[in-house]
């Protein structure tokens, strides 16, 4: 019964859309219902879903995907400056330009596999970061970051007769401001894009093309002797995931029209790897789960400070309270990455398939508990093999 639901695309999309669009309601009790965070869930979710098409399906671990996120943001801001404050041209251009970047970087990096591929992508990402930070200052505005200014031409807007009011104009979708409805318009727009992005990913996962990508991950040598030229398969997957990253970057810029080099830093590239692995690489929904978990915890942990910790441990006797605060405080606030690192280690050691593996363990445990003897083997045509993350394959 459950198996049937998961093999029907329309049903999956219906459930997925319902869950995403009602996020403000069901995230309310855990204090995650405000537009800024919801937008982050959706946008980084798109980033991770795209990354998963490369890493989850082919096993090629790119350490430079933030490059495309940054390229997408810069392109979008330039589109706002030169063309129009409408986000549609910005998003389309960002996808195209990041796709071109992915084509070039992918073409060069995919001459190698395994760890060498990872290092190459990292090297390209660092190059892109340095270029954005210093060398290409006229284009990227270096350290300050690229921003809108009053002197921007905005050709399309002025042709359409949209005259900016006082101050800087805001990003909009055919007149609807992204910031309207207290920011919820921005979230719902990102959510709709997320649903489309998820649908494309679902189609790819369940296509012959997706099966071939999984086969490349499983045994690339065999693929070549089976009659497949694996290079174009890998390159197309790389470009698709780069375009997803560019889309995510454009959405970030659509909500807050500025782009800085730090968006391309290696930590940003590492973050999407963490999100994907934490949720479960190679699974459809895993990367999105990983994104939500990481962004939610980041939001909570990075906001904590010692005085709040004292409040939290208020119920304890004074010396114990001080002791607890001393222990915990390095893990919160600025030190939240320590928590993230520890969490990541625990997941990789005990659940190499990520949260999704944990869930499948849980469901088979429940089944055993209630004595149902339904087979849990995957649907032989469609389903991804359970992913045991093989590191830098």
């Amino acid at each position, binding site marked *: 019964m459950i198996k049937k639901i998961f*093999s029907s*695309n329309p049903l999956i999309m219906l459930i997925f859309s319902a869950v995403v669009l009602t996020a403000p309601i069901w995230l309310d009790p855990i204090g995650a219902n405000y537009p800024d965070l919801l937008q982050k869930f959706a946008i980084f979710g798109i980033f991770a879903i795209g990354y998963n098409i490369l890493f989850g399906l082919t096993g090629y671990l790119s350490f430079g995907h933030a490059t495309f996120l940054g390229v997408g943001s810069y392109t979008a801001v330039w589109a706002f400056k030169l063309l129009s404050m409408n986000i549609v041209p910005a998003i389309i251009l960002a996808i195209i330009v990041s796709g071109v970047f992915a084509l070039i970087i992918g073409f060069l990096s995919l001459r190698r596999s395994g760890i060498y591929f990872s290092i190459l992508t990292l090297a390209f990402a660092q190059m892109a970061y340095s270029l954005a930070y210093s060398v290409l200052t006229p284009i990227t505005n270096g350290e300050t970051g690229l921003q809108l200014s009053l002197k921007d031409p905005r050709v399309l807007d002025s042709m359409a007769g949209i005259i900016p009011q006082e101050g800087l104009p805001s990003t909009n979708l055919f007149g609807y401001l992204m910031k309207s409805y207290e920011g919820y318009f921005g979230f719902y727009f990102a959510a709709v894009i997320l649903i489309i992005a998820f649908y*494309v990913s679902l*189609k*790819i996962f*369940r*296509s*012959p*093309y*997706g*099966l*071939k990508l*999984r*086969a490349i*991950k*499983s*045994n690339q*040598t*065999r*693929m*070549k*002797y*089976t*009659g*497949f*030229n694996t290079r*174009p*398969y890998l390159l*197309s997957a790389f470009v*698709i995931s780069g375009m997803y990253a560019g889309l995510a970057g454009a959405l970030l810029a659509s909500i807050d029209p500025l782009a800085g080099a730090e968006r391309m830093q290696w930590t940003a590239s590492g973050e999407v790897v963490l999100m994907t692995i934490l949720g479960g690489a190679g699974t459809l929904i895993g990367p999105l789960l990983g994104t939500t978990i990481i962004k939610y915890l980041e939001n909570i942990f990075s906001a904590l400070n010692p005085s709040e910790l004292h409040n939290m441990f208020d119920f304890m006797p004074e010396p114990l309270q001080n002791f607890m605060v001393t222990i915990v405080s390095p893990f919160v606030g600025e030190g939240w990455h320590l928590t993230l690192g520890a969490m990541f280690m625990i997941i990789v050691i005990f659940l190499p398939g990520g949260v999704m593996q944990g869930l499948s363990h849980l469901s088979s445990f429940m089944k055993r508990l209630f004595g149902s003897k339904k*087979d849990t*083997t*995957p*649907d*032989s*045509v*469609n389903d991804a*093999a359970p*992913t045991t993350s093989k590191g830098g394959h």
Partner: protein
Amino acid sequence: MSYILDIDGVNKTFGGLHALSDVNLKIEEGETHAIIGPNGAGKSTLLNCCIGRLIPDTGTVTFNGKNMIGMPPYDINHAGMVRVFQTPEIFPDLTLLQNVMIPALAKRDGTFKFNPFKSLAKEKSIIKEAHATLADFELDKFHNQLAGSISRGDKRRLELAMGLIQHPDLLLLDEPTAGMARHDTNRTIDLLNSDRMKTMTKVIIEHDMHVVFSLADRISVLARGHIIATGRPEDIKNDPKVKEAYLGESEDE
């Protein structure tokens, strides 16, 4: 007489080792040709030179009238020459059904086809053919299992199925029964002698003489990189040079 595969004057050295010296071998259409020889005679090197894993130093490999030297492995596959490996080369993380669907898709889609929006579940004819092929190899009952989880003998049969679903003009088999128990070996011999495979042109590398004499129409003996004899099984059995190569009684040493 038409030859499907013509290996002509192939030399291959690794450093100082002459792995293949001036090997000439012609495979006739429809025959099952066994290549035997002691360990290190160059049998696997010869196969690797045919399928593009190695490039010979000199000489030509002509298949169906086309020169194969320097062609990438996937183009050689599409030319109709398919190899089954000695250590089973399968897709361990995919189900058996998917393992067999992949080569069927290769046959249909060519070396590259970008069809991300096509539904895999709607590839009815490919799925049907995959099930039928698995059934021929008595593997269909496992079609839902991951290929990495089945026994070694089943893995080798699976790889045979993967080769067969492509309907190759020439199937190269590298020790198809190595490491198999006797009854598994006999099952494989029966499969290779079955109606579906009997008439297919095959080159078999094999150690097991029982297998060789059960299957081969002709036999070539490779020793220290040279083909020392080619002929019908009964001639090879009685060839003094072959006995010498196998027993190691060489007079000039």
